């Protein structure tokens, strides 16, 4: 399938999407997907968590009602900062993980009740599906490339929809 995708691309055919039962390494590069920026989001969420936790503890422990608990005063933030590190860390992880997970689910529109996104149910089992949107002329070219590369099945749907399986 990788070969077929490479050839389709080099003959100027844009691959709309590929549906696979498992992550295929290097496929995103072959079909020309940009690298996901979701990790950058996670970093930003994480930093926000750090800031939020610091702000919260400063407000509660130092600003609002400072206490001297067991000989450990909280008159300024730096006095007690070692004790604040575990929660700062936990809040960072909490915000980064949940922020990223939510972004991922919403960005891919993976929500309860969403319609199955794969055009053919066999693509979650053992079939690999290349999804193309083409005009008639391109479609012929694409089909011949796919046939050469051992496609099992080509389906045309409305516009056109080609499906090789290995």
């Amino acid at each position, binding site marked *: 399938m990788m070969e077929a995708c490479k050839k389709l691309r080099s003959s100027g055919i844009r691959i709309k999407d590929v549906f696979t039962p498992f992550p295929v390494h290097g496929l995103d590069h072959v079909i020309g997907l940009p690298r996901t920026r979701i990790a950058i989001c996670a970093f930003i969420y994480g930093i926000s968590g750090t800031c939020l936790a610091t702000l919260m503890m400063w407000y509660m422990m130092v600003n609002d*009602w400072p206490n001297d608990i067991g000989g450990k005063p909280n008159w300024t933030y730096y006095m007690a900062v070692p004790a604040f590190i575990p929660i700062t860390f936990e*809040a960072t992880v909490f915000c980064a*993980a949940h922020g990223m997970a939510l972004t991922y689910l919403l960005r891919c529109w993976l929500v309860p009740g969403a319609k199955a996104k794969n055009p053919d149910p066999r693509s979650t089992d053992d079939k690999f599906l290349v999804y193309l949107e083409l005009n008639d002329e391109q479609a012929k070219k694409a089909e011949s490339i796919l046939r050469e590369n051992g496609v099992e099945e080509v389906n045309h749907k409305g516009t056109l929809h080609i499906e090789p399986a290995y």
Partner: protein
Amino acid sequence: MHAESEIREPLILGSKNYRQITDDIIAPIEGKASKGWYILLTFASLTFLWGIGSLAYTIGVGIGAWGSNNGVDWAWDITNFVWWIGIGHAGTLISAVLLLFRQKWRMAINRSAEAMTIFAVMCAAIFVTLHTGRPWLDYMLFPLPNQFGSLWPNFNSPLLWDVFAVSTYFTVSLVFWYIGLIPDFAMIRDRVIKPMQKKMYGLLSFGWGGSARHWSRFEEVSLVLAGLSTPLVFSVHSIVSFDFATSIVPGWHTTIFPPYFVSGAVFSGFAMVLTLMLVVRKVYKLEAYLTVKHVEYMNIVIIVTGSIVGVAYLTELFIAWYSGVEWEQYAFLNRATGPMAWSYWAMMTCNVLSPQLFWFKKIRTSILATFILSIVVNIGMWFERFVIIVTTLCRTYIPSTWNSYTPSFIDIGIFVGTIGMFGTFFLLFSRYFPVIAQAELKTILKMSGEAQKKASAAHNHSHVTTH
């Protein structure tokens, strides 16, 4: 596609293809449950009911229903809390740390190990919730505005760190687990025929389609979540150990506690994963995926962490003597020779001696021996927490507060009840959820499948002869 050396043992036995993996994973969901499953479920849910009864009684009359007393004010509640949360650690270790190290053998076990984590943390949460005495006031643990003149929880206290650590750990593990489950639920949705099942798994699968763009995000999310969970899992048990280490009780006030607790947690967690896995592979006939090699790898982790635990015990003893602090010396003398010495020696035998048997390859690769030893290790790790908590609190600074401890019927009920709850949840999980992360497993089939490896080896040899 990376090639893999022929010498490495295959991780998927027999000649499987993608379709067969699908069939094998979906078999327990599509088929009828076995008689054994119903018997186990009945047994587990009855014990769970006993637990619920004991729980309700405790809430009704207060924690006076427990064996805890003035001297031994932390007893089975905290012992069980630490035990359960420690068990949970192996799930995260397998799914996160082994992902970062690109260990392919994790793929067959991570799903059920993570499920184990989640259920174990739920069990742990029951004990801390009750331990507060008035569980209906537990919202006061969280930094909420309140009617006490805006008195906030004490952020200098390790007990509060625990609240944050455990809740972060639980929710992050849950999300990590679920994100991994989505593609597998989609596989089930596309396979099942019964309309009700199709609808349920359709809902659970969140509309997953396996598009290349989504897979690339999926992989990035898994990697980053693994990167976040790794320090998280170490932080959780470190913070649990701070509950003890930051106190001034002799035997607790030691700097060795965080690494000692973390390795103990991984040790007991792997033992629990083995106990469950050996049952699952038998009941659901997954011997081709959960191979003896997997068992051996996990037993090696048990030797390593078990030895770390052993070294930690000896270090503790040495430092107690070397410190010259009499309180500290007495605390350890009391553990080893005092009225509860039996529990100390049970711990030593189960945790230090028994895992060393795994140095023998015969034992390490024997299913029966592993099953027995995995249970022995879990008993040992329970005794470790019992020794640290109860034995220590029986003999603290002032002899007039010296005391003894016996658990009440209710104590036993809650503990056994949580095991029942854990069993019930795990049985339901293994029946209705994909017990193996099949999408991930399919990625290693070409490299680590037995038939595929043989084929590629034959192919390579033919090259050698022709050239």
